[in-house]
């Protein structure tokens, strides 16, 4: 007669212990799943905030046409170097030819490449004052700490464009790797073009550098 309640309490204790263990395990698993997920959400928010502040600054500093072009170019160069991973982009753009070039040539290329970008894009912001910028989906690219942020850019006097930004998170900050407007990737286009020039010049990076330098000198 006595043994039965004891057995009952034992089993109920065991059951309670088991339940507690199961609960703990569930919480533990949830925590494992949840924590990195919330970390990712933070990262996505941070990436969006980074882009918003970058585009705000770009329009504030570069859209004003009363500022002399030389001054705007200087500002663009500053923004470009601070927020774009210029060495990585230059390396991607040269593709397989990067490795065959020596360090001096690589450095020379990056310098002239930066000038080309400044000449090309610094004047593009004129008339973009009042542009509406909206962040859309943000997703992580599996490896290499890369994040794709999609956005809609609506200038006051033109049709809205869909622009994707490829970012890389590094040391708690972000750098832009590529800008993809309406499916057209800046880095990819330059890589194809420079690749073609390099192929036709027998892979000589010096020939490419000379051509680019001629371009930037002419653009003034």
């Amino acid at each position, binding site marked *: 007669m006595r043994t039965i309640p004891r057995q009952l309490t034992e089993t109920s204790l065991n059951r309670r212990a088991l339940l507690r263990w199961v609960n703990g395990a569930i919480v533990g698993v949830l925590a494992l799943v949840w924590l990195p997920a919330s970390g990712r959400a933070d990262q996505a928010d941070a990436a969006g905030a980074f882009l918003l502040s970058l585009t705000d600054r770009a329009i504030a500093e570069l859209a004003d046409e009363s500022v002399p072009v030389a001054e705007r170019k200087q500002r663009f160069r500053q923004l470009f170097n601070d927020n774009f991973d210029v060495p990585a982009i230059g390396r991607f753009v040269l593709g397989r030819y990067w490795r065959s070039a020596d360090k001096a040539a690589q450095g020379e290329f990056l310098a002239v490449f930066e000038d080309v970008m400044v000449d090309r894009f610094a004047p*593009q912001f004129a008339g973009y004052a009042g542009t509406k910028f909206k962040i859309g989906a943000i997703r992580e690219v599996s490896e*290499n700490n890369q994040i794709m942020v*999609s956005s809609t850019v609506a200038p006051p006097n033109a049709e809205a464009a869909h622009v994707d930004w490829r970012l890389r998170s590094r040391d708690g900050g972000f750098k832009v790797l590529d800008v993809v407007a*309406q499916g057209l990737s800046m880095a*990819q*286009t330059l890589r194809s*073009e420079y*690749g073609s020039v390099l192929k036709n010049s027998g892979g000589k990076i010096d020939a490419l550098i000379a051509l680019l330098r001629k371009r930037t000198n002419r653009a003034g």
Partner: protein
Amino acid sequence: MEFSVIRRFAAVLAVLLALTACASQDKDAPASGVPGESADVYDVEDDDNDPLETVNRFMFAFDLTLDVFILKPAAATYRFLVPAVVRDSVRSVIRNLRSPVVLANDLFQGEMARAETTTMRFLINSTVGVLGLIDVADGWGYPHHDEDFGQTLAVHGAGEGFYLVLPIFGPSSVRDGAGLVVDTFLDPLTYVGRIYDIEDELLIRTAVGGIDTRSRNIDTIDDLQRDSIDFYARIRSLYRQSRANEIRNGASDDSQTSGLYGSEPDFSDPDFSDDADNSETTD
């Protein structure tokens, strides 16, 4: 006469199927239609898929010359003389005339929602919009989109074949060039002209459409050309990326393992990652 049209259509279809069959053998070709695409081929020469490059470059130069002496001046004059409202009406009429072709390709691609949009646009703009002069449908939630048979072929798995620069029409590919031919047969205007004995109605529409489109791109193309060091290669890359984007209907590219942009290796190649062995050499 109708029999000859049907016979010609059958001939084109046969050639097309043969081409598509060839293209489909290229297992590497993704839906974007760029063959030879594979991840992480950093040390391999980027595949331009342009076996006719010499001929293409010649044709490109020819097209550019036509552009400089005829199309661009015509477009600039048109933009200068014709008010923006009228130019928008011209574009609306041309888009409205193209609706049957767009609808057919929407249906071929199984895009029912887009097919409905195209149908509603045609019905609304042809009536309320006064024969297509005003794009009323756009404001009513039926925005314009384009489709063509080249995209339909791509959606069904055809590769681009290879890059092709057509006389006058410019950048294209085997697939998209064949698509252009099929679209002409899908176009009711092709047959209306035959029945009513109107000549050159397709030619006129193509010319006006070309001038209108060019007039909207004058500044963009000038910008593109200004800092280019190989304009042919730049346009080839942009054409492919733009087609891939159109085939995806503008959706963001979600592929993460294969090359994201065209036939070249993407950012997942080792030299673009954090631990690139020579990253310290760049400063």
